[in-house]
């Protein structure tokens, strides 16, 4: 279990999930008061253990801590609920919602992932949850500040989520990026015909995008991305540019809404969990 005080000058968007180690008592989380958190009571008893794990890990509180430095002009609701649907995308009226159904599916896919993946099933499940929460929160930030978005909106949200993952040191970056990438690989579907008309990108594309951002951030920490052939070299050599471009866009569009004095109060940790 690992706790890291984030230096991240980026620290904006959210992070999630953690179980604080009893031996590694974290500081009081400095939550953004505009972020309204809720762990909904699921009607389906099968989701109860998921809720318990999230509460124990202070998953949403960590997101509220990550968003601590952000000057939000209005309240942002962030909740985990039973949706009676696979997902509930971010919307201005409803805020950020993660469905218990979504987490159950994440855990199911992670458990079936090939054993030779870069991450274990529990790591994958945690990372995929973090990725999902950050992605949805990125949509919220784009909406709240009416940010200009060039490129497809879902890819922009992924790049912002990747930036967040990479601001808390190599240990967290490695766990979350490889975990999320492993999850995308494990959840790949076959795309044909009009599937390509979707506004969302194929899982494999997202897999490569996250790895590219990570390699572009630090080619040494993520040398395995190329050394193990996870990302083709022709893409890899441009990843530093991709990362720098995303970072520059972040600084231009989001940093004006960040209170730099609160950045060192951000606290994030990635828990070890056991899947049933």
């Amino acid at each position: 279990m690992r706790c890291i005080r984030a230096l991240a000058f980026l620290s904006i968007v959210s992070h999630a999930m953690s179980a604080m180690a009893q031996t590694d008592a974290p500081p009081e989380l400095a939550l953004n008061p505009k972020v309204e958190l809720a762990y909904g009571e699921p009607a389906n008893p099968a989701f109860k253990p998921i809720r318990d794990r999230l509460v124990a890990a202070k998953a949403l509180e960590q997101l509220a801590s990550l968003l601590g430095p952000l000057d939000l002009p209005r309240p942002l609701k962030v909740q985990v609920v039973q949706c009676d649907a696979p997902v509930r995308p971010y919307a201005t009226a409803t805020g950020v919602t993660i469905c218990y159904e979504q987490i159950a599916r994440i855990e199911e896919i992670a458990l079936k992932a090939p054993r030779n993946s870069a991450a274990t099933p529990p790591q994958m499940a945690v990372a995929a949850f973090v990725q999902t929460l950050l992605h949805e929160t990125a949509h919220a930030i784009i909406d709240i500040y009416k940010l200009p978005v060039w490129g497809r909106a879902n890819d922009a949200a992924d790049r912002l989520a990747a930036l967040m993952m990479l601001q808390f040191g190599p240990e967290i970056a490695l766990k979350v990026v490889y975990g999320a990438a492993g999850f995308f690989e494990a959840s790949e579907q076959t795309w044909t015909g009009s599937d390509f008309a979707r506004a969302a990108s194929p899982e494999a594309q997202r897999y490569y995008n996250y790895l590219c951002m990570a390699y572009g951030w630090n080619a040494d920490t993520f040398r395995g991305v190329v050394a193990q052939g996870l990302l083709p070299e022709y893409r890899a050599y441009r990843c530093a540019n991709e990362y720098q471009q995303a970072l520059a866009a972040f600084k231009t569009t989001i940093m004006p809404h960040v209170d730099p004095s609160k950045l060192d109060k951000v606290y994030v940790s990635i828990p070890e969990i056991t899947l049933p």
Partner: protein
Amino acid sequence: MRSRLVWLGPLAVLAALLLAEIATSARAQTAVSDRLTNESLVIDYVEPRDPAYLPVMQRLKDQQLLERLQQFLSPVRFKHKLRLTARQCTLDGSPNAFYYPLDWQLNICYEIVGFLDKMTPTEPVNGVPPKRVIMGALAGVILHEVGHALFDNLEVPVLGREEDAADQLAAFLALQFDKDVATTVVTGMAYAQLALKNVGMGVVTDRRSFSDEHGTADQRFYNLLCIAYGSDPGTFASAAAPDVLPPTRAESCKQEYAQIRDAFYKTIFPYIDPEKMALVQTVKWLPE
């Protein structure tokens, strides 16, 4: 960035546009073109190493492609010089156009011009005559590279994938002109995606195909149609036909176009001289 295929690029359109007739009334045209100047833009037709491309160079010179592109871009208050260069780019003849950030250079390769000529359809596409389809395709290729050039030169924040962003800007620019130009360029760009797919570009052959920084040919095709449909569901109604954009995507296209328009006004419009832009919009960029 862009050194990968033009196939992506909407630039061609622009080029064609630019090339095209600026004026029906020579005198009026001259008056307009005299005002569409910009000292940041430097043009150059580079002598090809392979003499087989000499006729292509001559044709582009005769059409004043770069001069027209220069005029088309003249409303932009560039932060740095931008070189607009027509040249032979490779020794193997592979078709391309690319923006090269290290020396602020937008390259239109003689190879791509010849390549597009060979792709000329035998029948009209979407009601657009064959030669105009290719004109639209070339304009699309050039506009795509213009997108990369503007993002770099003006330090535009790009949150999403730049290749998609360049496609979006190319389509958006084409859609700011009259219906004939918009339809010609969008059709040319869409045709180019499908034609290039037929020669294996942007095709998904295995998982690694998804590692490209460009979207697949199909994704780019659908993205383009969505932007066009979102901008004007009447003119581009055929994009939402049952066998084209699925209803689930079509219903979000208005919003997608609004996103691009918003991004344009927030990040690029501040660098545009409105008077010159109004002039540019009066010019007939595509020849009859």
